């Protein structure tokens, strides 16, 4: 893996050519869906001529393929958008380009970010960076693997219920999901508006903090962005940290428990106070998530109708047939599954029992977090119940697959900032991450805590 500092002593052209070489060399992992070589080399030469400057001038990066960006199609890893060339760029991409960074390609994901393993990509799965028989995690699997393999020092991803944190854990890199509203989502393919967040992968916390400071901030084109608050210069001294007891049961893989326990020991050695805490509502959060999020997905995916852009089925005679067939051919099975679950929980007979009940439960979840954050600066626990699982292991049972998100969805439903930081490997050489969660808008404090532990 290479940090941003590793690139500073080379010309932009050398950096980009090297990144493209690494991308080709590692093609068999299928982390990237496309390369933006031509545009990347043009921008590199402009950096070397001094026409493009900035804090990240000449630094290569990759973008999850649900961000609109120039130089390659924006497919969302779906047949629906296979040939869709976005006419504009996402705000986060624009901000990185304004800082001089150079995108070299777009990364693989579960189609429309619906999934936890990148196996739902219409173009085939991404392989885990540490074991090719295992999943990359997801949905931002391609971005995590590209950073873990050293193709680029950082990558953009989206996290709706764990889609940055879980693949970061599975591949041994740092993954950041910010407070809901910290980063503009303009130009990003929407999945579930009430939890969608944009974040990044990096090889270390300092690089991740730099990227977040560049992409964060209010955007007139996304009215859900919060007024600017992120201050990257915060430092931490002694913190009071809660260890979530519900995530230490026998259902959690023993290697994961060992990794988190040793991280907790290190927190204590560093002078932080760690106490066990209870969050009884956690037994209900995955059910809340798989009601609220499919409901929002079914609404968001309604826009793909084969009319204005995207896939249009051929040989259809009526408009209804055009909609029905384009959506049958353009969506993956998991997209269709979530559209149906969402339509079901929103339908008039079930709305109160499912959707409304889930939104009330969400209030109770937020109240439990609020109570804990009156006492604790941060919470610590695993990212996922196991290290990376095998390719195909859960593809026949959607609920088994959903369980991979059980520890990441609570922070998403409450809009809290959460990190996945590497916490060692098991005997099989699989990376395991630890999750750190803080109160809303405490992103900088959380990253400062993670950074101080990295130095220990």
């Amino acid at each position, binding site marked *: 893996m290479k940090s941003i500092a590793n690139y500073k002593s080379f010309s932009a052209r050398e950096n980009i050519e090297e990144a493209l070489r690494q991308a080709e060399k590692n093609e068999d992992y299928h982390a990237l869906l496309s390369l933006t070589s031509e545009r990347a080399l043009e921008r590199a030469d402009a950096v070397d001529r001094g026409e493009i400057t900035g804090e990240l001038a000449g630094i290569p990066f990759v973008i999850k393929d649900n961000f609109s960006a120039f130089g390659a199609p924006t497919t969302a890893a779906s047949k629906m958008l296979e040939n*869709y*060339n976005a*006419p*504009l760029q996402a705000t986060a991409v624009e901000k990185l380009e304004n800082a001089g960074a150079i995108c070299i390609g777009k990364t693989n994901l579960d189609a429309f970010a619906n999934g936890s393993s990148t196996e739902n990509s219409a173009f085939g799965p991404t392989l885990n960076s540490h074991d090719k028989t295992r999943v990359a995690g997801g949905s931002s699997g391609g971005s995590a693997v590209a950073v873990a393999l050293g193709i680029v020092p950082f990558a953009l991803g989206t996290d709706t219920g764990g889609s940055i944190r879980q693949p970061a854990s599975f591949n041994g890199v740092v993954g950041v999901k910010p407070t*809901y*509203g910290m980063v503009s989502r303009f130009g990003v393919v929407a999945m579930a508006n*009430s939890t969608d967040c944009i974040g990044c992968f990096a090889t270390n916390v300092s690089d991740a903090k730099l990227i977040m400071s560049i992409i964060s901030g209010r955007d*007139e084109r996304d*009215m*859900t962005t*919060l007024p600017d608050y992120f201050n990257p210069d915060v430092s931490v001294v002694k913190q009071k940290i809660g260890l979530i007891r519900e995530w230490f049961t026998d259902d959690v893989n023993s290697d994961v428990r060992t990794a988190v326990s040793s991280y907790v020991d290190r927190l204590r050695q560093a002078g932080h106070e760690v106490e066990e805490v209870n969050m009884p509502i956690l037994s*209900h959060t*995955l*059910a*809340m998530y*798989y*009601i609220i999020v499919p409901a929002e997905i*079914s609404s968001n995916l*309604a826009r793909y109708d084969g*009319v*204005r*852009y*995207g*896939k*249009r089925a051929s040989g*259809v*005679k*009526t408009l*209804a*047939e*055009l*909609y*029905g*067939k384009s*959506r*049958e051919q353009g969506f993956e*099975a998991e997209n*269709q*599954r979530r*559209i*149906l*679950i969402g*339509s*079901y929980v929103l*339908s008039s007979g079930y709305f109160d*029992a*499912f959707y409304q*009940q*889930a*939104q*009330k*439960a*969400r*209030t*109770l979840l937020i109240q439990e977090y609020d109570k804990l954050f009156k006492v604790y600066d941060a919470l610590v626990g695993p990212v996922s119940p196991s290290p990376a699982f095998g390719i195909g292991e859960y593809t026949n*049972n*959607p*609920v088994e697959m*959903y369980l991979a998100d059980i520890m990441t969805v609570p922070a998403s439903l*409450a809009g809290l900032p959460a990190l996945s930081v590497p916490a060692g490997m098991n005997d099989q050489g699989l990376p395991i991450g630890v999750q750190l969660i803080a109160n809303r808008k405490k992103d900088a404090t959380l990253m400062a805590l993670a950074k101080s532990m990295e130095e220990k």
Partner: protein
Amino acid sequence: MTQIAQKDVQHLAQLAQLQLDDNEIQTLTSDLELTLDYIESLAELDTQGVEPTYQLTDLTNVFREDEVQTSEVSREQLLSLAPESQDNQIKVPKVL
């Protein structure tokens, strides 16, 4: 175990504008049953008198000046994204 009739799933698919064949409906029916079995557990949680949370930012009525701004995207660009167009219009087959 929750049971749903395949015809109900077919109806749901129609409402969602998904034209699915019998095999797809059959698989999706059992997937939907598995998922409903799981999410139904939420009914056990007492939420009497609790207000629902629909959004997390606490922002309300975010206003901006109502000014005309030029779009960075042209009509030609947008039309070129459509699978079929004619005379500056997007073309679709007959409605009925």
